């Protein structure tokens, strides 16, 4: 357990992935006899050790949190397209909301490998949902700023408010936001005014993960999250994010 209701699991794959996963790619985790759930890849080492970080929400994640060491799970992946890192990115801002922190270690590592400076802004509801980031990061972000909605730790306010108060968006080559849909909508709407089109890593309901069942579709778009995402430009998903209330 990393924090209240938040867990880290290290999984050893029987057969390593065919290719090294890209940031924001995910796997389907099967808890035998219970259900299969999409989970971001937090970290992966070439010998086949996969790390996931998850928050307990319902039956599936509850069960995942309670199974013992040595249990057998099923893993399908890596799935999704992942974020293609551009050579011209010298400095990138990552805004993570809550469990949106899960895919950031792989993202930070990939950016670091490309010689890119990474600034992480992490927001949670309250202090008990925070944990020591050293426990999940292999390569550390160059700058870390933290906020809580209730002010119980760090900056008081949302991660977007934090970002706006301590950083200048124009000093970044890219902004990548990961978190719950209302947060992503707020980020997209704010940046739209500044004529910036950030990248957002989203969630929709993923069932097949292979582009055939259609459950993960993005409203008002022909895109499917499981094969075209989960990372999109705000401009591609604005209609979807706005249609969720």
């Amino acid at each position: 357990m990393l924090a209240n209701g938040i867990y880290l699991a290290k999984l050893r794959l029987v057969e390593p992935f065919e290719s090294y996963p890209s940031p924001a790619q995910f796997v389907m985790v099967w808890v035998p006899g219970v259900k299969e759930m999409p989970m971001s890849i937090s970290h992966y080492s070439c010998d086949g050790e996969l790390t996931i970080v998850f928050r307990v929400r319902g039956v599936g994640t509850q069960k995942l949190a309670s199974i013992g060491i040595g249990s057998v799970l099923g893993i399908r992946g890596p799935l999704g397209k992942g974020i293609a890192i551009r050579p011209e990115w010298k400095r990138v801002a990552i805004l993570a909301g809550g469990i949106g922190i899960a895919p950031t270690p792989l993202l930070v590592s990939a950016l670091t490998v490309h010689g890119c400076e990474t600034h992480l802004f992490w927001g949670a509801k309250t202090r008990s949902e925070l944990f020591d980031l050293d426990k999940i990061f292999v390569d550390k972000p160059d700058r870390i700023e933290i906020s809580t909605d209730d002010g119980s730790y760090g900056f008081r306010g949302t991660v977007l408010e934090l970002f706006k108060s301590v950083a200048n968006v124009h000093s970044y080559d890219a902004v990548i936001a990961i978190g719950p849909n209302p947060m992503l909508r707020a980020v997209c709407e704010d940046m739209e005014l500044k004529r910036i089109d950030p990248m957002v890593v989203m969630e929709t309901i993923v069932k097949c993960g292979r582009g055939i069942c259609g459950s993960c579709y993005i409203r008002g778009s022909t895109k499917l999250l499981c094969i075209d995402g989960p990372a999109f430009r705000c401009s591609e998903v604005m209609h979807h994010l706005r249609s969720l209330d």
Partner: protein
Amino acid sequence: MVSKLSVRVAGLHLEHPVMNASGILGATPEHIERLASYGFSAIVTKTITPQPREGNPPPIIVEIPNIGLLNAVGLANPGKNIVPKLVEVSKRLGKPIVISVGGSTPSEFLEVASIAEEAGADAIELNLSCPHAKGYGIEIGSDPYQSYEVVKTVANSVKIPTIAKLGLCDRIVEVASKVLEAGAKGLTLINTVRAMVIDVMTARPVLSNVFGGLSGPAIHPIAVRVVYEVYRELRPEIIGCGGVVDWVTAAELILAGARAVQVGTALMWKENIVYDVLIGLRRLIEHFGVRSIEDLVGYSHRV
């Protein structure tokens, strides 16, 4: 060039013989738009039932390398009210649209079919063959008399063409004959085949539904046989479906007796499959020195 590939099947005039198979997307306007972008000559929707259905919880698919795919989506769909919206997008994109209709009684089939007709759909495909939803599909479709009742109820009341989609069962020729007698203008052959996968490390069936439907390369020879046999016995208008992954697999179904083909599982690996198939079929027309693809329908029965 285009006319060489154009076909008529069950009252539909198609630019070419490749349509999508029901259930690969096809449940929302957004899905229809994506399917249209793949180049299909007509769009077939996901099977729509009167009421919305959640479908099964994941795992709903298992990929079996080189063999195919096992699925138990469980007829997840938004219910009949979506039908006019699906028709509208398809019309806007200039594609004929076939509404796949599901139900557990003849009147449920009719409920959705009537809406489809009213909305301006081009045809209806009755799902008498889904192998993994209790009380639906093959549970009706393997019985010639129940199938007859469903098709008759629908074909008697709606004027747009009714296509019956049948699955693998012992009495397939008998069922086919009954549904044609009941007024079906065409047959789609076949649906997925009931199957299962067990995870050996945990000894558990993988699908939450235990049983699912097998599709892809594994069922292609079965589809070819069913199309061949039904064509030989009854000479109906057939849409072939099952394991089309390239032009050769599409051509086999046509030579066996299909006027058009549907592609499902292959989209998982190859979103541009339609063009591959069309290029191959054009060459086959030249190879046999015939005028058009229609001349090759059932050709294997004439050589």
